[in-house]
């Protein structure tokens, strides 16, 4: 349980960092920025979809591990 809360406090600054990095990428107009802006910025939607998928998968893996631990006890 404690581990759970600790992970959350780790995740927030990480998210803020991601936001900042993304914003900086715009200023310098990196290669990623160019790709993201092509085809009517559809890759932004893809990035959003992948973020949600990754988030849910990480969450399920954690759940799976906890379940395994419980079964072993």
């Amino acid at each position, binding site marked *: *349980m*404690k581990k*759970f*809360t600790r992970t*959350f*406090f780790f*995740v*927030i600054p990480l*998210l803020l960092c*991601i*936001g*900042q990095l*993304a*914003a*900086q*990428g*715009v*200023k310098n*107009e990196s290669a990623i920025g160019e790709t*993201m*802006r092509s*085809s*009517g*910025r*559809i890759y*932004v*939607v893809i*990035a*959003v*979809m992948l*973020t*949600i998928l990754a*988030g*849910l998968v990480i*969450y*399920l893996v954690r*759940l799976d591990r*906890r*379940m395994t631990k*419980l079964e072993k*006890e």
Partner: protein
Amino acid sequence: MSKTKNYMYKSWWKILGVVLLVYTFVAGLLGKVPNLPALEETVRNLYFHVCMWFAMMILFTISVINGIKYLRTFDIRYDIISRQYATTGIVLGLLGYATGAIWMSYTWADPNNPAFQSFGALAREPKLIGTAIALLIYFAYLVLRDSIADMDKRARISAVYNIFAYAMLFPSIWIVPRLLPSLHPGQEGNPAMNFKDIDASMRIVFYPAVIGWTLLAVWITTIKIRIGLLKEKKWQ
């Protein structure tokens, strides 16, 4: 309690949720969307980013209902249900925040956007601060819970705190950001709920998407609840 147990073991709504999500992904990427110069194709994020927040609000609502149920019956199982819905709600909130950060980086923070000067201009965005406050209140819920060893005391205090957190949720994510100048859409009226607000071609995807994401989140939560109930049974 048997009623609550029933829905967790039924599979029709899980299938429905998956079908709706498949529809969301297919129709969400291929469907027609109005061409807005500021958003272009990113408007399709409505089916993903916005749905995270809607599902989060629905899950927090279920959580507070079970918290109240606990206070009425002092049945520890309602406490387990309440806690698990709150945690899944937080996960959705974090995903909403992360996806919002990505979306924002290519719309508000665009060099072509005259409203954008610096990252500081975005950090002042009331919607961002409001949602951060709401999520932090719910983090405090978890911290509070886990810091109390006594099971009954923990359940009672966290159920009461859950009600307070819920009371703060809507003012901080809806009301306060709307009173301040903001870049976020939905400054006037009820965003996403207003029929004149969203194009009809998007509404036929958006509403199923909200239901689909919510059902997926509920599915994950029911598995967590089942684990919680199993643990509870073992200790007794």
